[in-house]
Each structure stands twice: as structure tokens, then as C-alpha cells.
């Protein structure tokens, strides 16, 4: 396909411009240009930190480069006007190419395209009807089906078609890509993404949008009943789980747990486990060994004073260290009682000696942190469109790779006492292999004498 000169294409200027435009949108040259242009744009988007202020990047100290960078949104490449335009142009170009090529595919599907990739001529001393039987068998063994046979004025034409569905592969792949891009557009226009940090026990219907940080309201509210963090014996995290209830107008509508890779979805809005934060201490676990040897364990609320068993004194937890020192997690406590001076002291999980108050030995065993769970909130009306596009794309690849359209045409006619056999074939893929298999098969039929061969 060479670029037409405008002088040849039309009498008026407007026609030639239209032709140029049509050419732009139906040319594979444009496709290749756009593919590489998008690739280069995407490279820019990965080497320049995105979402950060441009004046932090040294190279943009130069005023000209800085202005250029601002104009082309270098810190927000993937949403910039030029990148989105390139993607839109690619979509239009694929559409244009498809639109132009589909009639050709339809013609080929209906066998109107008779262009064959090879042509072989033979002569034989056998009669046409005898030859016909042999060649029909041969054709069936190669093509796996019976032929369409037509006879007219002494010429027998046998036609085979195999796997015409192969032709669907090309449009499916390209329609798939267009559908994916449209799905992306839907998501970009009407979808949103946000984040909510919710404390265990809290209920909220507010979240902050990413990346604008605006606060938004959900059509339902989320109550986090519990957050659990499980670890492997080696210390690596095994599971993050938020047990949540969703409610609308005071009524529970859904409940369940959200884990990484296991989101919860309600009316298209999905909640994902994103992260978590320790924001306090839920309970502190202490053990008390009384003077008579009895052992008692208590999980206590760190905000309240605790009665020390076997003593008149009370214990108050002043602060907790989650484990920043070698001795492990520890607490600072003060002991108050009517009969004693207030005293402060520290206890650590790994302490060998307990703290003693009035004969009761107190040990700090551990604590349960108070978590806030970080939920990612996502709504994307385009996501199923994207999956549809992906399915079409994959189906198209399967058809393209694993099927192959082949045609075989054998004409037999009587000519001055001998029979002339003309064999032509077409294969969308592996042309040489198809031709060789035909040639090899025909060579085995001893009655045929090869006359000459043309390549088309």
C-alpha cells in the first residue's frame, strides 16, 4: 500500500484531504507509528516520577524545559492530553483498519476471493471419471472432508474448504483491543478509587478519593467488627482480614470478611484489603502469681485502673512500647494504693524477674494491638467491558494460532485424448508446508505427469 499522491486522488482539494484522513485511519503504517509513539510516551511516564511536583526534578531547572514539561504534563503522563489522544487515535486507527479489511474477509469467507497461492498442472492417460475418484480420495485425505463437486462441459471442479473460522481470528483480536480501550474509557469517566482507614469497632460511610484526597460518601456504611493479622511462625504476614458489616438506612445489607485477594462487592462497589495501621492498644495481658502460688491471667483494658489480686493496690498502665528495644515489648506502669507512695516501674515481656507488689508477682505477657484497617474502595463500570475485550482477544489468538484456513481446488478436463488436471491451493498460514504436502501427495499418484508449475 503506497501513499497516494494527492494530485491523483481527486479533482478538488477537499477530496484529497479526506483521502489523506481516510488513509491515516486505515493504514498499518499509522498503527506502527502509534504503537511506538505510545511506547515512548509510556517510557517517559516510568522514568519521570509521576504525581510529583515538576520543580523537584533537577533537569527541569532550565526554564524552557520546565515550561515544556508543564505543557505536556510530564508528571502525569498517563492522563495527559497527548497520551490520551494517542490512545484514542490508536482506537480509531484499529477501527479504520478493521472497517477497511472486513469486506475482504467476508469475500474470502464466501469463497469469492479466488486468489490461490500455488497452481500445479498435470496430465494423465486415465479417463476423467477414473481420475476424479482418485483425486477425490486424495483431497479428502488432505482436507478431511468431502468436496463440493461441479461439472460443466466436460470439466469437473472439486472444491475443498477447511477451517473458515480462522478468518474470525484477526477481527476478534482487534475488536478485543478496541473493547478493552473502551472499557478503560468507561472506567476513567465514571469510575473512582478511594481509601478508607477504619478503626476496629467504628462505622463510616466516608472515604478519600485517590489521588485528589477529596472526601466522598458511600451509598452504604461500613462497620469494621474486627481486624485480624495472622503471622507465619517465621514472622512473615500470613493473612490480613477485616470482618465487616455493610448497612444502609440502619439495616444490615451484607456482612463478610475481606482479605487480600478476596474483596467484598456490593452493587458494583468493591472493598479490598489494602493495608492496616496499629493505632493503639486494645488489651494488655498480665499474669499475677499470688503469694499462695495461685496463678491468674488477665486481659485488661489499658485505659482503666486494675485491681491487683491479693493486694489493696491498683495498677495503671502509663505507656506501652511495642518492641523497639532488645528486651521486647514492654509497659510502663504505676502502682497506686492508699497505704503506699505512688511508684512507677517498667516491665518487659522478656524480663526474667517479675515485679512484686505486696507479695503478688506481676508479669507482662503481651498485648493485643488496636488496629485500623485500610480498605481500598473501587467502582469501575468498565471492568466487565475490559474482561469482555480480553476474552475476545484471547479467543482471537486461539483461532489465529490453532486454526488455519486452507482451500484446495482440483479441475479435471479431457483434452485431446488425455486428461488435464489443474490443482490450486491456498493456505492462510504455513503456505510452503501446505503446498509441499499437496505436491508430495500428488507425486504418489503415479498416473499423473507433472507438466510445469507456476507460482502465483
Amino acid at each position, binding site marked *: 500500500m503506497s501513499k497516494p499522491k494527492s494530485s491523483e486522488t481527486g479533482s478538488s482539494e477537499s477530496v484529497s484531504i479526506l483521502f489523506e484522513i481516510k488513509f491515516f485511519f486505515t493504514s498499518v503504517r499509522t498503527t506502527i507509528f502509534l*504503537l511506538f509513539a505510545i511506547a515512548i510516551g*509510556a517510557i517517559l511516564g*516510568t522514568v519521570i516520577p509521576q504525581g510529583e511536583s515538576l520543580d523537584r526534578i533537577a533537569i527541569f531547572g532550565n526554564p524552557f524545559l520546565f515550561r515544556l514539561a508543564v505543557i505536556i504534563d510530564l508528571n502525569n503522563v498517563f492522563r495527559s492530553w497527548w497520551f490520551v489522544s494517542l490512545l484514542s487515535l490508536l482506537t480509531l486507527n484499529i477501527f479504520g483498519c478493521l472497517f477497511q479489511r472486513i469486506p475482504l474477509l467476508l469475500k474470502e469467507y464466501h469463497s469469492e476471493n479466488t486468489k490461490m497461492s500455488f497452481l500445479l498442472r498435470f496430465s494423465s492417460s486415465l479417463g476423467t471419471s477414473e481420475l476424479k475418484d482418485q483425486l477425490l480420495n486424495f483431497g479428502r485425505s488432505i482436507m478431511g472432508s468431502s468436496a463440493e463437486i461441479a461439472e460443466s462441459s466436460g470439466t469437473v471442479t472439486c472444491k475443498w474448504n477447511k477451517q473458515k473460522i480462522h478468518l474470525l481470528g484477526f477481527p476478534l483480536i482487534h475488536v478485543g483491543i478496541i473493547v478493552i480501550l473502551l472499557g478503560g474509557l468507561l472506567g476513567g469517566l465514571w469510575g473512582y478509587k478511594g481509601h478508607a482507614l477504619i478503626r476496629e469497632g467504628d462505622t463510616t460511610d466516608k472515604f478519600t478519593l485517590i489521588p485528589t484526597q477529596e472526601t466522598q460518601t458511600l451509598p452504604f456504611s461500613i462497620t469494621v467488627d474486627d481486624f485480624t493479622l495472622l503471622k507465619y511462625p517465621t514472622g*512473615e504476614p*500470613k493473612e490480613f482480614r477485616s470482618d465487616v458489616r455493610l448497612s444502609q438506612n440502619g439495616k444490615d445489607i451484607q456482612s463478610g470478611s475481606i*482479605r487480600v*485477594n478476596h*474483596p467484598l462487592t456490593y452493587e458494583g462497589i468493591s472493598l479490598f484489603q489494602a493495608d492496616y495501621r496499629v493505632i493503639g492498644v486494645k488489651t494488655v495481658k498480665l499474669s499475677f502469681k499470688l503469694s499462695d502460688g495461685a496463678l491468674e491471667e488477665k486481659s485488661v483494658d489499658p485505659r482503666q485502673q486494675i485491681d491487683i489480686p491479693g493486694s489493696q493496690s491498683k495498677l495503671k498502665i502509663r505507656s506501652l512500647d511495642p518492641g523497639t528495644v532488645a528486651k521486647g515489648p514492654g509497659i510502663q506502669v504505676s502502682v497506686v494504693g492508699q497505704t503506699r507512695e505512688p511508684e512507677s516501674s517498667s516491665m518487659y515481656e522478656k524480663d526474667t524477674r517479675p515485679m512484686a507488689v505486696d507479695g503478688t508477682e506481676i508479669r507482662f505477657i503481651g498485648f493485643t494491638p488496636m488496629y485500623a484497617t485500610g480498605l*481500598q474502595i473501587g467502582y469501575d463500570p468498565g471492568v466487565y467491558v475490559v474482561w469482555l475485550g480480553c476474552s475476545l*482477544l484471547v479467543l482471537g489468538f486461539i483461532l489465529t494460532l490453532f486454526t488455519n484456513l486452507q482451500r484446495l481446488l482440483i479441475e479435471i478436463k479431457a483434452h485431446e485424448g488425455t486428461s488435464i488436471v489443474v490443482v490450486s491451493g491456498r493456505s492462510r498460514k504455513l503456505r510452503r508446508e501446505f503446498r509441499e504436502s499437496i505436491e508430495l501427495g500428488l507425486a504418489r499418484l503415479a498416473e499423473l505427469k507433472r507438466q510445469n508449475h507456476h507460482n502465483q
Partner: protein
Amino acid sequence: MTNVEINTYLAFGYLGWIIVYLITYVSLKDRSRLSIIFWTALLVLWFVHTGSIALRWAESYWMGIGHAPLSNLYESLVFFSWSVALGLIVVWKKFGEDLVPLFGAPIVFLILASTFLIDPNIRPLIPALQSNWLVAHVFTCFLGYAGFAVSFVAAILLLVSRASANIASVLPDKRLLDEIVYRSILIGFPLLTLGIITGAAWAEHAWGSYWSWDPKETWSLITWLVYAGFLHARLSRGWSGRRTALLSVIGFFAVMFTYFGVNYLPGLHSYF
């Protein structure tokens, strides 16, 4: 013997295979009879390689943290070298061509040897990796990468033989090399596409967004675009020989950058 020990022996096995084959290649005029021995040896190495991956899988179950051995840099490198070796075997079988496998085998060796530098321990799966998409994603991506690696080797041989007629006389026919460059990408491209799709499905499941322009995602798209460009240039514009070979080389650099280079860019795809 543990899988890690086997992998060490295996790396040297591949290296030994390369050296002995190279010596034979240079010193013998007619190597057709020895070829079958090297073919068998390569198959044996590859079966041991397969066994080592299976053993690692079993070992993880014996440790009580069973998962497919595709979950960290060590495991992905072992699997990548396995896929490239498979690609070379397929080329040998399909095209009856042993020079592409011979010059591709150093890639297998280098990838496998690079695992000596990193932590080989089997680790339990962190929550983000506990997904059925993991296996599908890694499997398709690396098989695709293997196709591109094979294409890269053939492309380099093609470029070298175009540059020097002397060298060309001992290398495979240029048309055959060109065919290998193209056919390997024809296999690699749909696999990479599947890899990107399974990755997107996984990201949608884990993070709530099938595409977030994270550097690794973006670079896999760049790789995809380069190979899409390759296929269109070849199929519709009739490019072949030097120009498509150059595109294949560029594409493989994009693959390598997607795999390793991205770690030097800011982003969240930090598992391997």
C-alpha cells in the same frame, strides 16, 4: 539432595554442555553423529531442571507452606531459565537447527548462575501472593519471555551473519534465522498478552484496579507494544531481515527491563 543443590549442579551442567559442544563444533567438520549425543544431553539437563522445580514444590509442602515455586526472584529465575531451555529444545526439534540452542544456552546458564547471588530459601506466601492467578500469571509471562529470548538469539545471529560473509558461512541460513526470529515472537506474543491479562485480573482482585500504570505494568505494555509493532511491520509492511531482527533485539531489552530494570524505578510490584 535439595532443589537448591540440584540447581547449582545444573548451572554447571549447562555450562559444561556449552563448552564441550563449542569445542566439538570448532574442531570437528562433521558433527552430525555427535549431534544426537548433545541433543540427548540437553534433554537430560532439562528433565533434571524440571525435576528440580517439582522437588522444590514438594519441599514447600514438606515444610507445611506448600505453594507453586513461582513466588520470588529465586524461583522465577529458575523457572525463566527452564522456559528458555524449553524454547531452545523446541527450536532444535522444529527447525533441526543446533546453533540457536548452542548460542542460547549461555542465557540459560547465566540466569541459573545468577541465582547463586540471592536468597534461595523457600518462604511462605505473603497475603498478596496467595492467589490462583499467581501461577497462571507467572507461567504465561515467562513462557512468553522464553519465546522472545529465542527470537533474540536468532536475531543476533542474523545480524552478525549479515555483517560478515565469513561468519555467515558457518551460521545457519539467513532465511531460516529470520523465520525463527518471527515464529518465536508469534508464540511469545500471545503468551505475553495472556500474562498481562492474568496479571490485570489478579491486580483487580488484590488491589481493586486492573491497571494502575505501575512501572512493571507499564513496561510489560511497552514490551507488548514493541512486539505488536514487530508483527505489524512484518505481516503488513513486509519488513524482514535486519529491521525485524533489530526490533526483536529492542523487544528483548524491553523484556529484560520489565523483569529486572523496573526494580530501580519507583512502584509497588516489588515481589520479584
